[in-house]
């Protein structure tokens, strides 16, 4: 018979094809090629396929898996049975393990790992997947929460970009725990790789498909997250998998601003400028991106001004911190917040990403803050705020029935800059005692804040009054520049820019009042930390030469004045303090470069102490 077939084949099939067929049957030494791995599709049909091994995960019940000959799919000879333990089982807390081969297999011709499964009761398997080889598990792909029922049903684990799977050892793995504390059994059968044209419409994502935009600094690093592969299964329903980084190739649009390596770690290396991080899986585009708008060198949080004796510090490089259990408790199951803390120029900064809530715990020992009066923290929200954000801050005192809360309003304009919060204990709702403080919790109260940096988190006392600030006894001198040469911000001598807001809510601690000194209106900043002035309209002061101001302070040790143009672009100028009497200064506008002098929108002061200001205006030479 064989001869006959060959004769017929010879008649109808091109000779080359025939040679190929024959080569498939026999092999000579001269035909040897570089090693390739077998493409065996079977994993478990009625028993272990060639080379297959099993290993249980640490902490799981080692005997959870067994081969079952009674309950099988389609009355085949055997299936795999898995017994999930009850809660508290001394042998282990869950069932989990890996089916792997010693030698690799070439799976590049397949599109999915498929199997049939049923359970003794309806249950959700926490994790099932492919590509765990008990080693690097480079090409792991995992389904979370696979629903199984009491009837046999076919399940699919699509292989993302199987062209890379030329030497894969991880065949199948699972991990799942009790349902409501109770164990159960499930069966898996007919585990094999298939080349299915009925799995369609692959989509891949990074950051779960979101196009993220973040303001950042040189030196900030972060990991690309939310790597998924989504396939439409033969029943028209989408199946999502968590896919390993190695399936993806990442690209930065501007390597002088940000780099990304094959593990998905992004590092900001330059600025100002922006770079977009994107990805591909094979030739397929990936949904989601990260646009990093680097403003260059890191902008440090303002240095704390409180005396160390008046401070109990939780997180600051300016003070000695008390023992802290953690700065992120990763509280399961609802917390999404992750940490990506970083250090710039020796200053450590907390960074919270994917923020919903996060807690800092300092319970061993707890903190006696009865001598303190305030909580201070500096936060920086790197993203544009679409509207005012509410950050809820909770303090937990050991033994309290519930946490004490304070909701801080962060105006939309206050993103992309450091905001100092000084929160009196007296304004925390429900704070009955501060003798055993143990946690600070941040909550994204109105879901406006996707993440933030935090620094200088400490309790302090303002019980010791600052040195007496005094008050000027005479008014600042009345200016003499012709009104035509002046654009005035604050002065009785000139008409100010209409609509100017002398006390915008930038969440500052400064108390702003206008006080008459010898009948002359004078601007007073009491307890300055920082203070803004929003001009009624953008000003073109490029034809002006100087910023003029008169200032008086008896107790300030630091005082800076800033001009701000959109961006924001801001530059500070240091003023000599304290003063003896009024100081009158004309600051050349060139000192404020690179602020756009044709588009000045705000002024800002920062520093400390009590400040009196007058005659703030721009003037020509």
């Amino acid at each position, binding site marked *: 018979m064989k001869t006959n077939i060959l004769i*017929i084949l010879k008649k109808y*099939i091109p000779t080359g094809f025939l040679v190929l067929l024959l080569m498939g049957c026999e092999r000579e030494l001269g035909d040897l090629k570089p090693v390739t791995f077998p493409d065996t599709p079977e994993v478990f049909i009625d028993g272990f396929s060639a080379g297959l091994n099993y290993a249980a995960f640490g902490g799981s019940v080692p005997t959870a898996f067994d081969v079952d000959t009674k309950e099988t799919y389609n009355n085949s000879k055997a299936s795999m049975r898995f017994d999930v333990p009850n809660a508290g089982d001394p042998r282990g807390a869950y069932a989990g393990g890996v089916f792997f081969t010693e030698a690799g297999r070439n799976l590049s011709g397949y599109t999915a790992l498929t199997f049939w499964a049923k359970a003794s009761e309806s249950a959700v398997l926490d994790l099932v997947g492919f590509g765990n080889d008990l080693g690097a598990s480079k090409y792991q792909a995992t389904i979370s929460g696979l629903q199984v029922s009491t009837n046999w049903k076919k399940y699919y684990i699509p292989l993302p970009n199987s062209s890379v799977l030329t030497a894969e050892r991880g065949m199948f793995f699972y991990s799942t725990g009790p349902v409501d504390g109770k164990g159960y059994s499930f069966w898996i059968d007919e585990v094999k790789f298939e080349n299915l*044209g*009925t799995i*369609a419409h692959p989509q891949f994502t990074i950051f779960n498909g979101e196009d993220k935009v973040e303001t950042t600094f040189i030196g900030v690093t972060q990991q690309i997250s939310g790597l998924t592969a989504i396939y*439409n299964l033969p029943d*028209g*329903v989408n199946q999502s998998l968590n896919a390993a980084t190695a399936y993806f190739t990442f690209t930065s649009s501007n390597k002088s601003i940000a780099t990304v390596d094959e593990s998905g770690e992004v590092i900001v290396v330059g600025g100002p400028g922006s770079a977009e991080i994107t990805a591909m899986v094979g030739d397929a585009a990936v949904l989601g991106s990260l646009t990093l708008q680097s403003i260059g060198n890191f902008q440090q949080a303002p240095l704390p001004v409180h005396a160390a004796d008046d401070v109990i510090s939780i997180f600051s490089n300016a003070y000695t911190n008390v023992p802290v259990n953690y700065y992120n408790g990763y509280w399961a199951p609802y917390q999404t917040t992750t940490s990506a803390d970083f250090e710039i120029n020796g200053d450590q900064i907390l960074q919270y990403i994917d923020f919903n809530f996060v807690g800092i715990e300092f319970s061993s020992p707890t903190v006696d803050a009865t001598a303190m009066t305030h909580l201070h923290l500096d936060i920086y929200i790197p993203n544009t705020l679409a509207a005012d954000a509410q950050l809820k801050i909770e303090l937990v005192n050991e033994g309290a029935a519930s946490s004490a809360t304070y909701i801080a309003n962060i105006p939309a304009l206050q993103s992309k800059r450091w905001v100092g919060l000084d929160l009196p204990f007296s304004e925390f709702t429900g704070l009955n005692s501060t003798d055993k403080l143990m946690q600070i919790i941040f909550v994204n109260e109105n879901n406006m804040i996707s993440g933030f940096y935090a620094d200088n988190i400490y309790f302090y006392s303002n019980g010791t009054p600052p040195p007496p600030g005094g008050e000027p006894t005479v008014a600042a001198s009345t200016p003499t520049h012709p009104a035509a040469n002046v654009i005035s911000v604050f002065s009785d001598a000139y008409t100010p820019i209409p609509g100017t807001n002398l006390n915008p809510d930038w969440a500052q601690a400064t108390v702003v009042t206008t006080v008459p000194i010898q009948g002359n209106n004078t601007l007073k900043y009491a307890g300055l930390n920082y203070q803004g002035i929003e001009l009624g309209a953008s000003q073109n002061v490029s034809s002006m030469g100087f910023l003029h101001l008169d200032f008086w302070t008896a107790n300030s040790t630091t005082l800076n004045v800033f001009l701000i143009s959109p961006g924001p672009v801001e530059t500070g100028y240091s003023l000599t303090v304290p003063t003896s009497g009024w100081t009158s200064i004309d600051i050349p506008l060139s000192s404020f470069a690179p602020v756009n002098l044709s588009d000045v929108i705000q002024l800002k002061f920062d520093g400390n102490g009590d400040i009196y200001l007058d005659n703030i205006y721009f003037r020509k030479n």
Partner: protein
Amino acid sequence: MNKINKFRRILIQSILLMVMVIFWGCERDNFQKLDERNWQLTWSDEFNGTAGQLPDAAKWTFDLGTGQNGWGNSELQSYTNNPANISLDDKGNLVITAIREGNFTSARIKTQGLFAQKYGRFEARIKTPYGPGLWPAFWMLGENIETTPWPQCGEIDIMELRGQEPHIIHGTIHGPGYSGGNPISKAYALTNSRFDTDFHIFAIEWDADKIDFFVDDYLYQRIEKSDVPGQWVYDQPFFILLNVAVGGNYVGFPTTQTPFPQKMIIDYVRVYQEVN
């Protein structure tokens, strides 16, 4: 021009394939011996036009809204003539898009009052939508439906698909005594492939004695006049409809897992009449 003589072509092209089929033991008979026909193109829409443009108003009119009782089938969608639901794509296709935005919107167009024909070949090249609860259709109704209510007017479903079975299409006729849940119908399934991943050609060839149903020129169903348990109502002009329904008695309802939006992409609709 516009005459095709495809069965001879298929015959020639099939000779080598035949040899392969025999030797490789494939089960399906890829070759069908059918009577040779000469088809003359009588009506077509190739859907050439700019992106966002509605289909040619000289060829198609819209069914709008939710009809009575979800167009008689408890369908969920509201039909619109919004370009988001129906428009040309600048690549020679018409795209009907079912959208979930709280409620479902989609589109349904027809040639009623503009074109109808008795007998001939009716074909369309289509890539279907998918997902549980999606119900795309390329179908026909008797032109006399205004005076002779359904099912007496007759209905010929050239292609219907249930989105939860994206590898199966159905060809069906509804007439008096065999309509609704009890029509004459047959399914055609792809092996290891789906109707939503590539274009396929769906066609009927209809004459006084029978209606033949084709997928990619493969005849999978022949309904002869004698097969019909009730009256044969297919000796009058029929008009063409294209739509994507969401939910309803035929397909069941979409689930939270059904991906939206969903698109039916139609490359062309062509109608031929036989010439001797």
